[in-house]
């Protein structure tokens, strides 16, 4: 790991100021960034930890009934505290392993937008709103490809607001060595339709499977998927699975999620 200056501000405004410096990088729970720094794949001059900022931690419900989770809230805290959105709590309870969940944060995961991370699928399937220190970004505009988001340099995710669905479920086919999703599918049924978001499968990052959304909005049953086939175009092919296999898994995991959502 190359040397850097470490800062641990106590307030959001101090963090924003610190991130304005040259080659400054925000640090969430560090469960991705620290291994990346060890590999010397990143070499910031200053690392600004967001872990001392209490104002971006915690879970509450807003006046529109949305579940609002602070960007600095750990996976373990979401697993325990997001009971109002059980599918989301269950997703958080199965990220990585217990030690990763003690440190990793929702803001860090969403900002990193790893193509195999769990959280982006929940954010996109829920049509959630990503709130930063400067603006609010709709999930459909936020994720812009592998490790790419709408965030500007130095912008900090302060909160993610989830409309609570009538029914929802997340099914992850685990890549057994990494615990990341080989394919993960989050299905959420709202009064105005069903949203289906797929992670782990595409080299472009999380995406919505719109054909399945249409079919499930008409008939919320795994049978509604019978005539559909997820396209293998643009899907990841690696030693863990071919693009065709991932396409197959998308349909299987979507069906399981619908059945489990009830």
């Amino acid at each position, binding site marked *: 790991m190359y040397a850097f200056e*470490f800062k641990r501000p106590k307030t959001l405004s101090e963090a924003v100021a610190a991130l304005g410096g040259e080659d400054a990088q925000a640090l969430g729970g*560090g469960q991705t960034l620290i291994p990346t720094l060890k590999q010397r794949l990143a070499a910031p001059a200053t690392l600004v930890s967001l872990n001392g900022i209490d104002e971006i931690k915690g879970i509450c419900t807003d006046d529109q009934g949305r579940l609002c989770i602070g960007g600095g809230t750990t996976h373990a805290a979401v697993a325990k505290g997001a009971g109002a959105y059980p599918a989301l709590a269950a997703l958080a309870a199965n990220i*990585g392993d*217990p030690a990763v969940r003690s440190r990793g944060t929702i803001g860090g995961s969403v900002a990193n937008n790893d193509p195999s991370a769990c959280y982006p699928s929940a954010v996109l399937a829920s049509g959630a709103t990503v709130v930063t220190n400067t603006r609010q970004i709709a999930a459909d505009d936020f994720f812009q490809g592998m490790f790419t988001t709408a965030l500007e340099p130095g912008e900090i995710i302060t909160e993610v607001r989830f409309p609570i669905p009538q029914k929802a479920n997340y099914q992850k086919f685990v890549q057994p060595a990494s615990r990341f999703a080989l394919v993960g599918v989050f299905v959420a049924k709202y009064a105005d339709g069903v949203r289906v978001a797929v992670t782990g499968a595409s080299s472009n990052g999380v995406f919505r499977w719109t054909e399945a959304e249409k079919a499930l909005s008409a008939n919320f049953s795994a049978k509604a998927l019978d005539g559909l086939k997820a396209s293998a175009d643009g899907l990841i092919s690696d030693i863990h699975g071919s693009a065709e296999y991932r396409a197959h898994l998308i349909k299987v995991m979507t069906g399981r999620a619908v059945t489990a959502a009830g």
Partner: protein
Amino acid sequence: MPKVTLRVNGREVSGEVEGRTLLVQFLRESLGMTGTHVGCDTSQCGACTVHVNGLQVKSCTTFAMDVDGAEVTTIEGMANADGSLSVIQQAFQDHHGLQCGFCTPGMVMAAAALLKDNPKPSEAEIRHHLEGNICRCTGYHNIVKAILAASGQDVSAIAAE
């Protein structure tokens, strides 16, 4: 150089660190507490597991400065006050829950974190909880047995497998 102050196993300690100093480096190299092991150094194996403010973390994937002021518990803090083995440690010995012993500090810390939240875990819950702890001797069966025993549960069913 910046300074960090921690309470490690109930004792206040402080030392100079670099920004990039990992918690495990601070424990092992500055404090000389080598019970916490570095296995993979890539956040996979869990040999470096310690508790920070009561939560299980990988000390190789946590910066020392990021836990300034925290309560840290390591394997050196697990024995009883009189130096005898804790219930979990004794169960590992009784059930042969270690072979080479390299992963054991992390396994014991993971087990302690599990039993604090879930005093009577099922076999499946134990195995799920240990996903981030790798035993390269592949001695998982006896580790699971030891944790079941430490929680006061019958291990005969799993012993018969």
